Structures are given as structure tokens and as C-alpha cells.
């Protein structure tokens, strides 16, 4: 299902790519709840791993094109100062 929804990541602007990362995070959280009560559902687990892989790819693509936004993208101390100075998610138009 997600395969059809995804546009190529290079075609996405900053806001669209960030929203895609948020959508993948949400997909994983929602599947996690389901897997807690259906731990043997192999198909749901495949969907989880699929989203996890896409999430990692999207984080790397975002960092390369638009810089740091998420702590998972931090590699060295200059990354950290970039991370801490990006807007907080409750700021208007920045979440």
C-alpha cells in the first residue's frame, strides 16, 4: 500500500519529505500496537520492517538535502548544534 503512495524522494520538497518521515514514524507506532497483541503476524511484521527501512532512507536523504532535523541524523558535534537550533515541533508552521 505504501509503495503506491510514495513519490520519489528526490521529487519531494523539504516539508513533503519531513511529512513523509512523520508518516513512516506513525506507521511504525501503529503497527507496534497491533504487533503487541498479534506478535505472530508475519505480514504485519514485514510491513513494520518495510517502514523502518524507508524511514532510515528518508532520514539520510533529508540530512543530505536539507540538513539536520532529527536526533537520529546526528553524527558529530557540529550536527548536534544544528539539531538543537532547528525549530521545536510546536512552533507554528514548523512541525
Amino acid at each position, binding site marked *: 500500500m505504501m509503495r503506491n503512495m510514495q513519490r520519489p524522494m528526490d521529487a519531494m520538497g523539504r516539508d513533503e519529505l*519531513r*511529512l513523509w*518521515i*512523520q508518516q513512516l*514514524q*506513525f506507521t511504525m*507506532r*501503529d503497527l*507496534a*500496537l*497491533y504487533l*503487541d*497483541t*498479534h*506478535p505472530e503476524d508475519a505480514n504485519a511484521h514485514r510491513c513494520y520492517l518495510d517502514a523502518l527501512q524507508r524511514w532510515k532512507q528518508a532520514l539520510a536523504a533529508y540530512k543530505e538535502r536539507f540538513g539536520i*532535523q*532529527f*536526533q*537520529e541524523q546526528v553524527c558529530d558535534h557540529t550536527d548536534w548544534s544544528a*539539531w538543537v537550533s*532547528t525549530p*521545536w*515541533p*510546536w512552533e*507554528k*508552521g514548523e*512541525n
Partner: protein
Amino acid sequence: MWQYQKALQYPVKIKQPNAKLAKMVITQLGGPDGELGASMRYLNQRYTMPLRELSGLLTDIGTEELSHMEIVSALVYQLTKGLTPEQLEAQGFAPYFVDHTTGIYPVAASGVPFSAEVFQSTGDAIADLHEDLGAEQKARKTYDNILRLADDPDVRDVIRFLRAREIVHYQRFGEGMRLLQDKLAASSPWPKNPYAFNPSFDHECWKHKGRKEK
């Protein structure tokens, strides 16, 4: 342990400040059926669950409720940002303003501060899961009532997302309850009435582990 991600679970982009609406929405931060109470309820209940699946479910839903606290707080923050004291007063926000300015503090729509008395942790899995199912429906009810009163489309969109999550959580807790009841029915010395005891505390409930139902 927990890790923070610098993103909301669902975006909040309010164009029009509205303190009157903020006064209603804030009840889902600090009110009787709000997200703070939901999170504390699940994260406190999880320790004494007799099944690991149930502790996992309470951990993951309790964690998601923390991200819903952040969404509701972002709504209140943006709805009150940039208003003058006169505008805040005209929009009914003066009683909150005198104590908290436009800081975020957990209160109900009535102004009553958050209290741990809005939830229980009984140390009894059946009692706790029944409370959790009720809590999800009570929160869904509050979101429904906000939707009956709020006309700002930016606010309504976020409230509809939060409302949908209550329904998903209700579904998951229902599955958790069924899992517990099926396992109890298979192992309790009282298979016809395994719910009459505390499966988190009364170990006799799990006496006949693996017994096949006739």
C-alpha cells in the same frame, strides 16, 4: 528508557489564534479524560500485568499518549500565541492568564488542575483493562464534543486525528482483554468464572497452565 523525536505525531498549523477555543481544547491536556491522565494510567498500570503482551501494549499506548499531550499542548500554544491581554480577556482567557500567562499548564476546561485522582492503577489486570477501555471511549467523547463546538478547520483536522487514535486504542485494549480472558479460561481452576479473582495477584488463577478446554 525513552527517546524523544523532534516532530509531532501529527502536524499542528493553526492560522487563527482563538483563546476561547484554547480553553476548551486544554481539557484534553489536564482534564478528567485527557492525554496526561491517559499516559499516566497506562504507564503506571503496566508493571503488574500477568501477560508480557499486555505490559507491551500499555507501554506503547502510554508512550503514544505522551505524544498526544504534545499535540494538544501545541494546539493551546498556537491558539493563544500573539494575542494581547485585552484580546485574551475578551476571549474568556483571563482566569488562566493571571496564573499562567500563556504558559502550558494541565487544567480541565473548567479550570480545575490535573489530578492523579482521574485514573487508577489497581494491581488487578481485569479491573485495569476495563478502566482502559472506558477511558478510550471517554476521551473519544470529549473529542466529539470539541468537534460539536469548534469551527476552525485547522483545529478540527487535528482533533479528528486524535479522536481516531482513541478508537484504535480501544480496539487494541479489547484484543488485550480477549487474550487475557482466553488464557485465564484455559488455566483457572474456575474455568466458568475466571474473572472472579485478581489474575495479577492470585496465583491460583494460573494453576492449570495449558489445560485444554473440553
